[in-house]
């Protein structure tokens, strides 16, 4: 069953996270700690709505990254991401 309307693409979390990263975090490649699937952060499934940012692996559903912004600070929990890679050079592809 498609649990359709409760999540959007991780890309939508880009605005909140932009305040705290010097680079475009939606382009970061996330390796899921549960199943090792690799995906751009912008392609993960974003849950949480107004409560906070919950980014889940599209393959196995495990939480890769959690984030909450409050009082001008950002708390980030990336235990669910085995690895996070950012490549500053954008290729033509």
């Amino acid at each position, binding site marked *: 069953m498609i649990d359709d309307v*409760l999540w959007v693409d991780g890309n939508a979390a880009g605005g909140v996270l932009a305040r705290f990263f010097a680079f475009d975090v939606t382009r970061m490649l996330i390796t899921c700690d549960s199943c090792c699937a690799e995906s751009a952060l912008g392609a993960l499934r974003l849950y949480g*709505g107004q*409560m*906070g940012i919950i980014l*889940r692996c599209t393959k196995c559903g495990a939480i890769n990254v959690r984030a*909450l912004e409050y009082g001008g600070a950002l708390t980030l929990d990336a235990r669910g991401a085995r690895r996070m890679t950012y490549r500053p050079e954008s290729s033509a592809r």
Partner: protein
Amino acid sequence: MPITRGFKGRQTETVGARDRVPPGQYVTRDFPVLTAGPTQRTPLESWSLSLQRGGELISRWSWIEFKALPQTERTTDIHCVTKWTKLDTQWRGVTFDDVVKAAGLSSAPNLYVMAHCDGGYTTNLPVVDLVDGKAMIATHFDDMPIPATHGGPARLLVPHLYFWKSAKWVRRLEFMEANTPGFWESMGYHIYGDPWREQRYTNDA
């Protein structure tokens, strides 16, 4: 912060209900769904509720056994930390007191509870905030079985605290010695969550 000329949000006027609306909240007639993950859809034949302490099972009920426990109805207001408040919501379920009694305990240990839910969500509460009719494991909303998107077949209902404490898809209540923070509490939401003192985040008084 700059005011946007002419913008009024969805909140309705709270005529005559001001004293029921905690600070910073707005009354809604909707019932918004907020979730940390996909909707859990546990079949009733697989469902059970457990009471646990120190890794040991105190008691467990199947769905049929749970439904045979004393039923209590309650109409109450609920307050979400994302600022919506819903007045006069009607619930039915089994009070925490009746769960404790059915487990054969003379009283609940004066400790803390971690609620564990299908899908992995957790929330922590002091036992003192669950007893004396303050909380129930609810199975019905508006006389209908709670839909899965709102936490059915059973969810915790602790309406005097922010609604993230009313954990959806509850399956296990674990007594613990320390007030270990649950899913949202460990990210920065307040460890207790009293809407009347506006305890939304960790450093709020």
